[in-house]
């Protein structure tokens, strides 16, 4: 009925033809034209009604009824605002929930990480009996130099706020310390300038900074001349060497290098730093193999710690998971400041932050 539509004029023409045929027939039966016309009309009945019925069968009626139904529906909804509110809220909630779930599914399952060869990237962390899951800074040099499974491994941590001064408007920015190889391991290219050099991961050379593209655009007008300028973070001077794209994770406004020869990287330090580690597996190395390798390394490391560290290192385990899974996993993030290991015990799990929730 909705397909080919017969125009009303065609229907009208058919009725006219009918009346003419009937008039001619009646005239043949002996009526004069006037009488024949009246009789034909009479036999036909109500012409308007026939046309109305034709109209009713048409598509227009379908639209007319739809319009009426919608108006009626709206009127009814307006009549009972309580029900309407509940219905609208239910729908809004359902749509919102679905959107939220899809956003997570999209990030976790569908969208690849914005890094080079992301399948080989893993997240490695230590679990301690007392709570936080982190990589203790004193373990990282061993992870970096003595593992057999990673092509490269990088760490970051110490995310904190800092007052940015020195050029233009002062601002409050977030700063994350990263090992110098992190950017190249992820395969992220700078938007301007360069990434950190390996020698900038040493004490005395580490006062350099890489800006995020967002900060660069918002605070420095995307001016490439910022490269080579000195900015001040909480008063200390840092030479700007590069700008990294906004898509880079871990997110921060400014990245500065970790000096791996600093005291916090020694087992004998009174203070350690809580780090997060990302590694790129050598080709063909399974995640379980990497985990076992690091676990073995942890046991070796036990001997290098002073006796008072034995208690917190007891029951230490290592976990390695695909980086892509970080969004779904319970992720612990390093505490913002270097801390003494005696204080580790008191750290509430609540303080573990999940900066990487926005990883993917």
């Amino acid at each position, binding site marked *: 009925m909705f397909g080919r539509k017969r125009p009303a004029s065609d229907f009208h023409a*058919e009725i006219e*033809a*009918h009346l003419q045929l*009937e008039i001619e027939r009646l005239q043949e039966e002996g009526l004069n034209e006037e009488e024949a016309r009246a*009789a034909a009309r009479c036999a*036909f009945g109500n012409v308007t*009604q*026939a046309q109305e019925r034709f109209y009713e*069968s048409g598509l227009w009626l379908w639209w007319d009824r739809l319009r009426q139904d919608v108006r009626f529906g709206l009127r009814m909804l307006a009549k009972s605002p309580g029900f309407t509110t509940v219905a609208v809220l239910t729908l809004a909630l359902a749509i919102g929930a679905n959107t939220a779930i899809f956003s997570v599914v999209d990030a976790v399952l569908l969208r690849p990480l914005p890094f080079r060869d992301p399948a080989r990237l893993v997240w490695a962390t230590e679990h301690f009996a007392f709570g936080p899951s982190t990589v203790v800074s004193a373990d990282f040099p061993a992870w970096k130099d003595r593992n057999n499974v990673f092509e490269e491994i990088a760490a970051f941590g110490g995310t904190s706020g800092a007052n940015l001064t020195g050029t233009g408007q002062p601002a409050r920015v977030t700063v994350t310390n990263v090992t110098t190889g992190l950017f190249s391991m992820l395969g992220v290219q700078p938007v301007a300038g360069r990434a950190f050099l390996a020698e900038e991961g040493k004490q005395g050379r580490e006062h350099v900074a890489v800006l995020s593209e967002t900060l660069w655009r918002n605070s420095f007008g995307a001016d490439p001349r910022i490269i080579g300028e000195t900015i001040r973070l909480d008063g200390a001077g840092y030479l700007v060497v590069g700008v990294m794209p906004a898509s880079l994770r871990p997110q921060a406004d400014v990245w500065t290098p970790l000096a791996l020869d600093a005291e916090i990287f020694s087992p004998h330090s009174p203070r350690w730093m809580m780090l997060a580690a990302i590694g790129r597996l050598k080709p063909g190395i399974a995640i379980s193999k990497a985990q076992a390798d690091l676990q073995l390394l942890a046991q070796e490391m036990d001997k290098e710690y002073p006796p008072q560290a034995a208690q917190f290192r007891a029951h230490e385990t290592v976990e390695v998971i695909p980086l892509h899974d970080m969004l779904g996993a319970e992720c612990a993030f390093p505490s913002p400041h270097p801390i003494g290991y005696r204080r580790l015990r008191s750290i509430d799990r609540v303080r573990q932050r999940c900066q990487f929730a926005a990883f993917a």
Partner: protein
Amino acid sequence: MSTQEARERLELLQGTLGLLILRTLVFGPQHGQGIARSIQQTSEEALLVEHGALYPALQRLEAQGWIAARWGTSANNRRARFYTLTQAGRKQLVKESTRWRRLVTAIGRILGPEAKEG
């Protein structure tokens, strides 16, 4: 015809007009006026078919695909819309007439033998 005459004629039962149209078209393509005449003549003027009611019925049958329509020229050289029975229409006619005959037989049994006096 007078109103009196019209009253004595039988009004069609709901849904029977379609059956009559299908039956009429068995004899070949016909236009609306021809169908109306044919039904009246064949029923020996007993049935009252309001010609206006015919067209919505034709429209319905056409939509069902039981009849097909085409403009053509009548015997006395007038343009008219001619209707033909389709294959589906033929099947429908068989189905409907069987149903109708069974109905008539059943009602006839209940009413009993025809009274001579009326």
